[in-house]
């Protein structure tokens, strides 16, 4: 069985192809705002997806060394995400489904990140730290659903990095640039640290750090910002770890590429006798392969009808997993 997966929930138009055993293609094209330093403009992003989808699919088919007609199933991330972007992916899925006479599986974008992470790392029942531009959630599976233990109460952690980066006039995406700057920082300056139970709030920290403090170097400021925000995140994850008593920790999503975050999680997991896992780099950020792979896992959900679900919560996805 070969499943073609479509990811178009935000910046990335990704097309992946997977068999039940492995990913055989993972191609993408990433939208960049026309005006430098600006955030995502949904309509512009959707236009990018519309213009690039055919080409990206061609590349994926070539990589997989197969013809379009060999596709047995289409999977699409129909939420959560930006409505105009989601529509592009869903319309494309419908068109392909009609053309090839195959069914479509709706895949929750967040579940896609988790499932590919489990596949890459062999983690069976992990506590999941899912961190991306707009999402920051601590989840774990319990009685057929992923339960959300902790999450951001305002903006996603990736956006927090981006907003702070903009105050330093850095180009998007800001996360990697802040990480680089922080590596050169030495002096820690106190910044707002907000955790509420297992939840987090970033806006106070971003506002304070963005008031460009003249007495501080960019490097020290980035260092203080990164240490604060990641400590908050790892602290709430640790709480969920103690609470759920899980013995595996899986870090996934675009911000999983942050090496300092990996290091902190590893130390924390060790203190709880838990193993720490991160997916392959190309599976951390948004990608089509994770949608294709997850589609196969949930193929019994396949049908001909599908709609977008922009505010789909992770804990609303039923995990009726059947043996393949």
């Amino acid at each position: 069985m070969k499943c073609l997966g479509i990811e178009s929930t935000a910046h990335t138009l990704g097309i992946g192809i997977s068999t039940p055993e492995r990913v055989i293609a993972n191609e993408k094209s990433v939208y960049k705002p026309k005006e430098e330093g600006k955030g995502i403009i949904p309509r512009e992003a959707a236009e990018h997806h519309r213009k690039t989808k055919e080409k990206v699919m061609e590349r994926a088919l070539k990589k997989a060394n197969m013809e379009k007609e060999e596709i047995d199933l289409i999977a699409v991330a129909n939420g959560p995400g930006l409505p105009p972007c989601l529509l592009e992916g869903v319309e494309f899925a419908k068109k392909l489904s009609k053309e090839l006479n195959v069914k479509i599986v709706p895949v929750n974008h967040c579940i896609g990140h988790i499932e590919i992470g489990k596949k890459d790392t062999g983690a069976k029942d992990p506590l999941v730290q899912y961190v991306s531009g707009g999402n920051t959630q601590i989840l774990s599976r319990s009685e057929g659903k992923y339960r959300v233990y902790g999450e951001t109460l305002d903006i996603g952690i990736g956006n927090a990095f981006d907003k702070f980066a903009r105050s330093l006039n850095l180009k998007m995406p800001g996360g990697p640039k802040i990480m680089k700057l922080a590596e050169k920082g030495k002096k820690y300056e106190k910044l707002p640290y907000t955790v509420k139970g297992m939840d987090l709030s970033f806006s106070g920290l971003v506002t304070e750090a963005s008031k460009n403090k003249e007495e501080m170097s960019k490097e020290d400021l980035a260092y203080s910002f990164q240490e604060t925000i990641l400590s908050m995140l790892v602290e709430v994850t640790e709480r969920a770890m103690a609470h759920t008593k899980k013995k595996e920790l899986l870090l996934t999503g675009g911000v999983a590429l942050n090496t300092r975050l990996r290091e902190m999680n590893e130390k924390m997991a060790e203190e709880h006798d838990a193993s720490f896992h991160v997916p392959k780099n190309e599976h951390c950020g948004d990608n089509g392969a994770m949608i294709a792979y997850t589609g196969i896992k949930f193929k019994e959900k396949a049908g001909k009808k599908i709609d977008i679900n922009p505010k789909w919560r992770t804990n609303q996805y039923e995990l009726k997993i059947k043996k393949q």
Partner: protein
Amino acid sequence: METIYKGAEATLYRNTYLGQKTIEKERKPKKYRIEELDKKIREKRTISEARMIKKARKAVKTPYIFGIDPEKSKITMEEIEGETLKKRIEKEKEDEEKTGKEIGGLLKKLHSLDIVHNDLTTSNIIRKDNELYFIDFGLSEKTSKTEDKAMDLLVFKKMLKSTHWKQFKEIWSNLKEEYGNKKVLNRLKKIEKRARYTVK
């Protein structure tokens, strides 16, 4: 000294003080945090916890504080010899309607003193001699803001939903009813509606 619990935030030891059974709560250094930040957080929470436990006592039962050592981030307090609500709910020893109302009433009193707990879970509530004790005030604050009070409720609500999903509805609806403060409850609704997936 006997270690009785190793949590995410602190390690608890059992000891005695003038013939009383006590708990020593020590916030151990976290290797994942840089030292400057780690020390600040542990000291601040230790001092603030002891203070808030005393202040909150006007509204809810809390353990007595016998001593505090900010340098070691340690608080010595009375041991509450009971069972956590988490265990009691799991063992079906709690009447959901009654318990919901009880917590709602206590939160109403606590919030009327302008105190929020900020980390209320069923593991942080102990039943002893048929009364509820609140513990773990490390993140507690003095605040009169409606937003903060609503957030305090939200933290507990989400914890209930993820941990006790079978009992959630019954406990939460009764808690809300007894809590009663419309302004805070309306704000809670608003917070929950705030779109979190508008930007990825």
